[in-house]
C-alpha cells in the first residue's frame, strides 16, 4: 500500500438524506481549558446508537437547531463508541451557543464524513504523534485507537504542546499516557510559567529535541497551521520523508459532502477527499490555498 492511497480511502458511511441531522443528547461536559469544552453525546435513536460507526479522523456537522451548524472531528475513538465525544473551542456563533448548553440538551449531528487515518498503512510501524492545542482532538481518537490495539503497532511517541498549562486539552488523557510505559509522552508549553516543571518551548523545537527516529516510522501531525508548517521541516531534518508525514486539514465547511463548494484547495475538496492527507499529497496540490 502506498501513501497515495490515503486520500482515496473515502468512506461513505452516512445514509439516507444526509442533510437531515440525527438528534443526539449531551450526556456530560468537560471543561478542558477556558475556551474548550468536550461534549459527550449519543443518539436519541436506540437503533442508531447501536449501529453508528466511524473511523478515526472522520468528522461530523454538529448543529444547534435554530442557530446553525459547525464542523468538528469526532475526538473519541471508534474502539470506545459510547459515548461519542467532540471537543469544541469557543470561537463563533454556533460554538458559543454550544458552550452555553448543559447536560441533557439536544444537538443535531450529521456524519460521519470524510476519510480517515490510514490504520492499515500505520500497522507494524513506529508512530510519532505531534499535536498542538485543540489539534489533539482528532489525534486523540487515533491514539486511543492505537493504544486499544497496542500489539499491532511499534513504538509510540507523543509530543503535545499548548500556549500555557491552562490551554492543555485532555489533561486526563495526558496523565494516562504519561503512566503508560509503552508510550513516550512529552508535554510542553510555549513559555515558562510558575509551577510548571515540564518542558518549555514550541512544539516543533521540542519535537526536534525528542528526535524520534524516522526508521519504519509514520508521523501524524495536527495543530494550528503555523505549527504544522514548522513541524514538517523538523521531521524532514530527522529523516522523515513526505509519505511518512500525515496531517489533517481544516477549511470552512457547510455541507460536509463535497457539494457546497467552499472547502476546496484546487480540485481537492477537504470534506470529501480529506481531511486526512499525507505531506506528499499536500506538496503536490495544484493550489497553494492550503
Amino acid at each position, binding site marked *: 500500500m502506498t501513501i497515495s492511497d490515503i486520500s482515496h480511502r*473515502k468512506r*461513505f458511511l*452516512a445514509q439516507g*438524506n*444526509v*442533510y*437531515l*441531522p440525527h*438528534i443526539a*443528547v449531551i450526556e456530560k461536559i468537560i471543561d478542558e481549558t477556558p475556551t474548550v469544552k468536550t461534549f459527550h453525546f449519543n443518539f*436519541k435513536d436506540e437503533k442508531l446508537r447501536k449501529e453508528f460507526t466511524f473511523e478515526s479522523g472522520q468528522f461530523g456537522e454538529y*448543529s444547534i*437547531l*435554530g*442557530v*446553525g*451548524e459547525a464542523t468538528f472531528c469526532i475526538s473519541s475513538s471508534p474502539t470506545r463508541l459510547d459515548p461519542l465525544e467532540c471537543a469544541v473551542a469557543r*470561537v*463563533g456563533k454556533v460554538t458559543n451557543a454550544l458552550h452555553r448548553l448543559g447536560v441533557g440538551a*439536544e444537538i*443535531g449531528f450529521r456524519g460521519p464524513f470524510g476519510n480517515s487515518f490510514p490504520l492499515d498503512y500505520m500497522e507494524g510501524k513506529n508512530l510519532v504523534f505531534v499535536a498542538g492545542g485543540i489539534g489533539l482532538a482528532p489525534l486523540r481518537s487515533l491514539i486511543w485507537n492505537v493504544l486499544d490495539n497496542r500489539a499491532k503497532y511499534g513504538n509510540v511517541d507523543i509530543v503535545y504542546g499548548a500556549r500555557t498549562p491552562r490551554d492543555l486539552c485532555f489533561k486526563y488523557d495526558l496523565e494516562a499516557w504519561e503512566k503508560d510505559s509503552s508510550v513516550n509522552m512529552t508535554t510542553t508549553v510555549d513559555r515558562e510559567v510558575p509551577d510548571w516543571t515540564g518542558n518549555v518551548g514550541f512544539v516543533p523545537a521540542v519535537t526536534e529535541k525528542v528526535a524520534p527516529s524516522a526508521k519504519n516510522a509514520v508521523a501524524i501531525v495536527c495543530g*494550528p*497551521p503555523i505549527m504544522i508548517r514548522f513541524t514538517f521541516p523538523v521531521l524532514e531534518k530527522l529523516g522523515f520523508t513526505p509519505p511518512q508525514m500525515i496531517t489533517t486539514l*481544516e*477549511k*470552512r465547511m*457547510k*455541507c460536509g*459532502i*463535497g*457539494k*457546497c*463548494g*467552499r*472547502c*476546496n*484547495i*484546487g*480540485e481537492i475538496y477537504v470534506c*470529501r477527499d480529506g481531511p486526512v492527507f499525507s505531506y506528499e499529497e499536500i506538496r503536490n496540490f*495544484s*493550489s*497553494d*490555498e*492550503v
Partner: protein
Amino acid sequence: MKKIKKQNVAGLLEKWQKEFTVFVPSKASGVLQMAAWDGENLSFLERNRNTAIPPKANFLPTMQKMFGFRKEEGGYVLEPTDEDPPKQLLFGIHPCDARAISIIDMVFKDAYEDKYYLSRRQNTVLVGMACTSPYDNCFCTSLGFGPADATDVDIMLTDIGDSFLLEQVTDKGKGVLAGAKDLVEATQADEKKAKEVKESAKAAVSTKIDTKEISKRLPLVFDDKKFWEEIAAKCVSCGICTFLCPTCYCFDISDEMLRDGSGGARYRNWDCCSFAVYTKMPAENPREEKWRRVRQKVYHKYAFYPELFGVIGCTGCGRCIRQCPVNWDITQTLNSLPEGTAAKAEEKQKTS
C-alpha cells in the same frame, strides 16, 4: 420528425398543465426568467432570447427549506420536506442552460446523492428551444456544442416560421407527447429549413475562446499573482457572475428560529465564491484576497471541473459578461493567458 403549428402550442401546454407545472420564459416579475405559465401569454414563442436568471433555480431554488423542526416536551421533532416535489415541465429552455443542468447533475450525484436537487431533477421534463438569436457575448460554440444542440433536453423545438420542428430526444420526451394532438409529420422542406435555422444560429455566435488544452494551460499561470491581480483590479465582488451562472451551484446552509423559540427551519441559499466571508474561518481565510477569489471562479470552471468530471464547467451563455457591472469578460481573460502557455503545456505533457 414531427412538427407543430405555433397556434397549436397553447393546446400542448394546456395538456401538459394537467400533469405538470409548466414553466415558460416570462418577464412578469420584471426580469426574464422561467415562471409558471399563466395560460395566456405566448410571447415567448416569438421572442426567443435567453432568460436573465438561469433555470438552475428550478432545481436549486435561491432559498430552499431543507427541513423544519419543532421543540416539544420530549425534545426536537424534525419535519422533513420535499421528499416528492411537484412535477415540472420547463418549456423553451435554451441548449446552453440544458447543458448546464447536465453539468451540475454531476456534483449532486457525486459521492452522496443530494435528494433535494435530484428529486426535482427526476420530476422534470425539459423542452428545449433552439436558440436563434445568440447575444454578442455568447460563446457556446467554443465549448463543444452549439445553440441548437439537443443533447441535454427531452424534446427539442426549432422555429421554422409558422411551426416548430419537434425532435423527440428521450423516452421521457416521447412519453409526454403520447396522445398529443396537432403533431404532424414534418416534410423534407421543414427539416431543411430547421437545418438552415440551426446553421445560421451557430454562425451567429461570434465570440470565441481557445479551449484547447485549457485545463492544462491554466495551471501554468496559477501562481502568477500579478496576472490575476490585474484581472481582479476592477472586480467589486458583487457576485452577480456566480448568481446568474447556470453552472454555479455553491450554497450556504443556515437556520431560522421562530421568535418564541418553539421551532424553526433550516434553509439552503445560493452562495458565492466572490465573497471573502465564503471561506472565512476563525483564524484564517484562504481566499481573503480578491485576486484569489477571481482566480477560483475561473479555475473552478476551466481547470478543477475538467479535472474532477471531465467537462468544462461553463456553457458559454455569456450571462457573467452581460450582467457584470464593471464589464469583466471571462473570454478576454481566457484569451489573454500569457503567450507561451500552450507551448509550455505541450512540453509538460510530453515530459510527464
